[in-house]
């Protein structure tokens, strides 16, 4: 939704007070604006009513005077509408919400609130069997959430030739975003901290959603809210802020990641958290191979498997074929990474001479060979190494200097359970992988990866030994996945061959890993992590989809690729592209180096 073509009305200055035009819905502009404000407030208020008579619908929406479950989402949506509506009125202190003064953020939040509210109402009717199960509050909420949408689409906007085009104007990003007012370094850090906290709360809420309906409602609201922030130009401003404060943002991100288990009371969610981290870390490793070096690897999950199996073999499990051996974790982590590295070189050396499609097919084959080989190394069809399909169970928990990962610990009044322990360990592993990724990417070797990806012939003509450089990327990616695998073996108690396949309905598998990278944004750090989180949560939360989850996932992927091919988080290179096309009129004076917390006020 970034490109905006306005052939019909090329240079209409968009000012909120232009009353010459009428909106899509014929209403006076003043009334329209008032309607958005009142409607937003009404939507928020309707969350305090009872929407249904029975607590059978999860979340208990039967209480007057206090929102519950999905009603919180409606409430939040209503508040967002009010904020954007007030910003539209030019209320001091809220002007920053819509720096370009466009109405799209308002329209989008209104749609988001409408979506989540109507979804709830429909879900109640569907789940409990009919509209009779709705209390008057439910109807009021449905109508109230409609008001801001009517209001927003009655606001004057340039009309296109077709309704479709006109609708696009209502949801388009502002063409020119005025430069941000200069901020001091401390203000910038404060903003980043605040955004991190909001992000953590939002994210934690998503992971903690206890039932599928809540998760869907949450997704609807979040997607529209983020879209709204994007059209307002706030995401661009924030990412610019981040470029100036890279190290600080990274540190805040990790603090937030560490804080997550402390916000949880149920270790189940820490389990989800640690799995997301494992998945995300592997996706980030894959991002080196795919995103930086441009090598399409369809068998990447095998390296996770190599790491996991290696760790399981040296874990001291009684079922390990070398059960007498028990390495300390640091040693098994290194062994796992090294085993993956060797495996990566063995696979890479013959295949990396191939280009493009051929490489993809060969890696796909090797990935499957790993799983099948592991399946057969059971003493019957092959040497007894992996116990075949039974895998290696009863992998003991880790123990760091008497700190047993299998037990709960009380830290500063918080109870940190088994999965939370592993979660924190995984944050450390992820930190290492992020560090490796960012440092490698911003160096001579990283540049040669990108050069190879851009144009292999030109790159070799510039003196780059294509094969060597690609092999390094491949091996590095493999060893990072292996490292994550060593932790994952302990988290899951056992390793079996099955998860390490090309495609399946639950992550991690090679297809999901690749999807996480592409969906999240190739060549970025945050992209694959976000993509992995989404792809892990969707099948986890939407259990009712069951076997249809792959279909749903496919459709979602197609839609995303159609509307945002660069992934959810666009690469810096894409941002630079936007600079040149004038979508962000903030002069970019940053250097490319990863300067620690450069502070250029209002740069």
């Amino acid at each position, binding site marked *: 939704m970034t490109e905006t073509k306005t052939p019909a009305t090329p240079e209409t200055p968009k000012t909120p007070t232009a009353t010459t035009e009428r909106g899509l819905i014929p209403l006076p502009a003043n009334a329209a604006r008032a309607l958005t404000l009142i409607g937003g407030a009404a939507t928020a208020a309707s969350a305090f009513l009872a929407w249904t008579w029975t607590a059978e619908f999860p979340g208990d929406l039967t209480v007057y005077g206090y929102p519950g479950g999905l009603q919180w989402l409606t409430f939040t949506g209503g508040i967002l509408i009010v904020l954007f509506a007030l910003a539209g009125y030019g209320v001091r202190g809220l002007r920053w919400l819509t720096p370009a003064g466009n109405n799209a953020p308002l329209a989008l939040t209104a749609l988001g609130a409408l979506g989540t509210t109507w979804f709830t109402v429909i879900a109640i009717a569907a789940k409990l069997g009919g509209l009779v199960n709705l209390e008057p509050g439910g109807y009021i909420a449905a109508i109230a959430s409609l008001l801001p949408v009517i209001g927003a689409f009655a606001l004057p906007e340039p009309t296109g030739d077709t309704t479709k085009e006109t609708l696009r104007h209502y949801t388009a990003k502002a063409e020119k975003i005025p430069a941000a007012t200069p901020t001091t370094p401390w203000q910038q850090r404060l903003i980043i901290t605040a955004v991190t906290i909001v992000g953590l709360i939002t994210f934690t809420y998503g992971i903690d959603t206890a039932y599928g309906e809540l998760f869907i409602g949450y997704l609807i609201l979040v997607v529209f809210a983020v879209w709204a922030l994007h059209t307002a130009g706030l995401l661009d401003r924030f990412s610019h802020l981040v470029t100036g404060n890279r190290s600080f943002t990274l540190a805040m991100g990790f603090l937030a990641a560490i804080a997550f288990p402390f916000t949880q009371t149920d270790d189940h969610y820490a389990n989800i958290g640690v799995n997301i981290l494992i998945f995300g870390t592997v996706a980030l490793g894959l991002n080196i191979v795919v995103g930086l070096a441009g090598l399409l690897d369809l068998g990447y999950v095998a390296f996770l498997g190599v790491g996991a199996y290696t760790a399981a073999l040296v874990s001291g499990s009684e079922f390990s074929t070398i059960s007498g051996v028990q390495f300390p974790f640091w040693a098994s982590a290194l062994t796992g990474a090294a085993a993956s590295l060797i495996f990566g070189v063995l696979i890479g050396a013959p295949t990396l001479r191939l280009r493009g499609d051929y490489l993809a097919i060969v890696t796909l084959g090797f990935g499957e060979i790993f799983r099948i080989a592991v399946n057969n190394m059971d003493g019957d069809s092959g040497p007894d190494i992996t116990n075949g399909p039974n895998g290696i169970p009863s992998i003991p928990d880790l123990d760091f200097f008497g700190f047993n990962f299998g037990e709960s610990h009380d830290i500063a009044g918080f109870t940190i359970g088994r999965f939370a322990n592993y979660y924190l360990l995984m944050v450390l592993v992820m930190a290492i992988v992020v*560090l490796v990724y960012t440092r490698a990417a911003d160096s001579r070797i990283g540049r040669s990866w990108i050069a190879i990806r851009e144009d292999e012939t030109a790159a070799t003509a510039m003196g780059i030994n294509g094969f060597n450089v690609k092999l390094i990327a491949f091996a590095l990616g493999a060893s990072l996945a292996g490292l994550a695998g060593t932790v994952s073996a302990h988290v899951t108690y056992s390793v079996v061959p099955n998860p390490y396949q090309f495609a399946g309905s639950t992550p991690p598998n090679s297809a999901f890993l690749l999807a996480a990278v592409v969906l999240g944004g190739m060549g970025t750090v945050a992209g694959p992590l976000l993509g992995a989180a989404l792809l892990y949560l969707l099948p986890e939360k939407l259990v009712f989809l069951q076997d249809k989850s792959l279909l749903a996932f496919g459709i979602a992927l197609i839609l995303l690729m159609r509307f945002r091919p660069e992934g959810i988080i666009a690469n810096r290179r894409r941002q630079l592209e936007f600079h040149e096309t004038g979508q962000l009129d903030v002069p970019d004076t940053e250097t490319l180096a990863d300067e620690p917390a450069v502070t250029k006020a209002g740069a």
Partner: protein
Amino acid sequence: MTTPVLEARAVTMRFGGLTAVRSVDFTVNTGEIVGLIGPNGAGKTTFFNCLTGLYVPTEGTVSYKGTVLPPKPHLVTKAGIARTFQNIRLFANMTVLENVLVGRHTRTKEGLWSALLRGPGFKKAEKASEERAMELLEFIGLAHKRDHLARNLPYGEQRKLEIARALASEPGLLLLDEPTAGMNPQETRATEELVFAIRDKGIAVLLIEHDMRFVFNLSDRVACLVQGEKLVEGTSEVVQSDERVIAAYLGTPFEGAPGEEEAAEVAAAEAHAEAAPSTKGDTQ
């Protein structure tokens, strides 16, 4: 004239039944600017590819300053031959500065470990590389665009950037494949100055061009390739007046002319009007 910078001996390149380059001997001496001309499809680009290791010549050897080069592009660049491409091959999604930094690949050594550990040596090397790259960007006049994506540069600047990227590998010989293709007269003039300036840095230049005025102005020596064979070689005056060269050009349709006759007429008229028959400009 001392040891030649480049010495190609009996280079032959066959694609199946087609002999694109036929037993070409070629030398470039220190401090020389040599032009390579020839009608479309004569095998000029193929010859360049043989010199730089992109193609493994079917027969013959290429040596640089007396040592025979292995036909591997990265080793050729490392030895000291850098090139540009006929149809610009920049790293489109990298910035101007990054493009030049990639060109410095062979002159820097930092591997993965030093990138991960970020010792003082790494920082120093990165800084030095960047300084050198900025010098080059200043030299070709693109310093102010260092953070632009290469794809967003205008055409003429892309050509210049490709030259800067090639220069970044600190070559002793620069091969330019139609450096002025698609340029307007002013830009062509500027490129002329640029090539002289490069020569003044002590870098020998071998260039393919279709803009005859450009070639004959610049070159100390010009060779004409026709159907893979070196027809003539000599000073501008010699080549310009050589009948075989004129015939070769007349016998080949160019500039997308609809008919051979018309093309010949135009060329003939041009050849009469000015000593340097100007032919096609754009080969994209």
